[in-house]
């Protein structure tokens, strides 16, 4: 399904990729690049060209907007006295925002949906996050519809893929058609970005080719989840024996699932002080509910068992998230189960609760 309002063009792949690679000498462009046997999101340089035709990356491009670790501010101790140290007044905010015209290219539709979910976490309500907001404003996002499906991907069931359905928040949407990109320009930012690229108006034939490509990719999905019953199904089964069985048999508590999840937003704050006590850095780093200490309070811990922590991960993503943010916290990218050392599978858990049949 394409969107009627967008301007639609055909661009030769080499033209667009060549243009973006030339552009990467002037401005910061992030995109999928090959590193040894993996494709990862990193800065595009002449030595790391764009790899537009890729499958799953370990970390999603939402890491550019919400980094795994970032410094929030630093304090400087100008005096030589250590006793004044703990209540310093000179706070320096590190302006570690993106430059005004950063581009993130090659974002898969489910990862775009993940960024839209983080928008709800960090940009709505009374406590909008300044750093996240600035990065979002300063960045153009070029989405590329998926051409491949991997075993653990179920984005079609979650309504987030394989082709982008909601165009809010991105600037250009690409679909690979042979040697060409079917290109939909969503925003003015996207329009400006393409001004130096040779464009050809898309014909109805191109549109039909895009439709049949979408149908082809949809037909590749093997992993499916029924979302109609979802928030209720897991929330009403918090005492189901499956949590204990899977957690005790297989969960290693390694936190991989939450670290690779593109929507996991939990963090901890940390103070780090230089050895001469002159500089302290307040930073935040992505933390995980799978850590034992995560739910610690004075005198106890509210999720002492692995069973409780596994249940928290699953019931948050596809249960309580809906009440919190009005959407699922899962986009169906399948990273959690791919990177799980024992292949704990969220979809299998849900399907077993629903049908009683273990897979």
């Amino acid at each position, binding site marked *: 399904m394409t969107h009627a309002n967008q301007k639609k063009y055909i661009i030769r792949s080499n033209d667009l990729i060549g243009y973006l690679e030339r552009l990467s000498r002037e401005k910061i462009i992030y995109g999928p690049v090959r590193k040894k046997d993996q494709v990862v999101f990193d800065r595009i340089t002449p030595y790391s060209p764009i790899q537009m035709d890729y499958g799953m990356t370990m970390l999603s491009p939402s890491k550019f907007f919400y980094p795994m670790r970032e410094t*929030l*501010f630093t*304090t400087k101790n100008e005096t030589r006295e250590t006793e004044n*140290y*703990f*209540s*310093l*007044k000179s*706070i320096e*905010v590190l302006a570690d925002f993106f430059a005004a015209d950063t581009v993130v290219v090659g974002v898969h539709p489910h990862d775009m949906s993940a960024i839209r979910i983080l928008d709800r*976490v*960090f940009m709505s*309500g*009374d*406590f909008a*996050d*300044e*750093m996240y907001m600035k990065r979002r404003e300063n960045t153009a996002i070029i989405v590329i519809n998926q051409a491949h499906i991997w075993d653990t991907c179920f984005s079609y069931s979650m309504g987030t893929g394989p082709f982008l359905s909601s165009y809010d928040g991105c600037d250009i949407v690409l679909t690979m058609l042979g040697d060409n990109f079917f290109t939909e320009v969503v925003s003015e930012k996207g329009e400006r970005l393409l001004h130096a690229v040779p464009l050809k108006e898309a014909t109805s034939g191109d549109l039909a080719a895009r439709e049949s490509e979408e149908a082809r990719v949809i037909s590749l999905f093997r992993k499916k989840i029924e979302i109609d019953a979802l928030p209720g199904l897991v929330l009403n089964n*918090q005492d189901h024996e499956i949590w204990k069985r899977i957690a005790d048999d297989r969960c290693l508590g390694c936190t991989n699932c939450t670290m690779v999840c593109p929507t996991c*937003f*939990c*963090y*901890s*704050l940390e*103070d780090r*002080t230089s050895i001469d*006590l002159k500089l*302290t850095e*307040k930073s*935040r780093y992505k*933390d995980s*509910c799978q850590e034992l200490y*995560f*739910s*610690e*309070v*004075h*005198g106890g811990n*509210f*999720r002492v068992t692995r069973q*409780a922590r596994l*249940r*928290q991960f699953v*019931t*948050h993503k596809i249960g*309580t*998230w809906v*009440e*919190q943010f009005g959407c699922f916290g899962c986009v169906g990218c399948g990273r959690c189960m791919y990177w799980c050392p024992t292949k704990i599978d969220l979809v299998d858990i849900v399907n077993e609760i629903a049908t009683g049949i273990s897979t």
Partner: protein
Amino acid sequence: MNLIIPRTAVVDDIKRETSDVNTYIFRMNDEQPFVFKPGQFNMLGFNGIGEAPISFSSNMLANKSFAHTIRFVGNVTGMIKNLEPRDEVWVRGPFGNGWPMGLIDDADVLVVAGGIGMAPLRPIVNELLNGIESRKKFYILYGARTCDDLLFKDELRIWRNNDKIRTLVSVDEGPVNHKIIDEVGVVTTLFKRIDIDFEKTISFVCGPEIMMRFVAKDLILKGMPASSIYVSLERRMYCGIAQCGHCQIGAKFVCRDGPVFGYSDIKRFSDTLL
């Protein structure tokens, strides 16, 4: 605005409550306004050490001042123990929703506190003392481990001498005949001494989670609707602004949606002792 950047406050006064609890009067050290409601909390912190969420134990005082009653248990509170008048702390806040003060106007009120849980309830008592003459029934039930662990002892005497308030005290262990002790046992042992229409009473409860569980259970058995029971929860918050995720109970962020919850609203989730 970056909400992780702290403001500073100065220590104006320190009062010893028990061997490991002090009450501090802090005054905001800048030109910005500072307004809070009973039941909200601040993140108090120190450069290079970290932050901890602490409830207000007073109503708003003059000159942007406020009180925190703090037990020394960890890194941040261990630093607070060393504070002297004119020392500075980092403050972020106020955060949280606060007690539903609008509900107390015409209802009978039951305040149940356990240990350090008296601190966030003290502003309610102060607020109620204002219009005390027209109030029908007002009970304070306060349980502590021993006599030595009771907070606000001076005020406790004043409350007990006010015939408009019924203040009852229990201790887990201690002398039975002590003049300030009504029962030896957990705080629910005081329930047999109160004469109140449970269906028309609002109760405010704060203490260890297991204590709040049994208080709520007993109140519900006596006929109080679960929605009339308000509890204030403790979680180890890092941000205070519903981002860091540590304080989540089901769909609730304790720092933003709480720390005060209607019992029926929070009881439906796992990961509490309630």
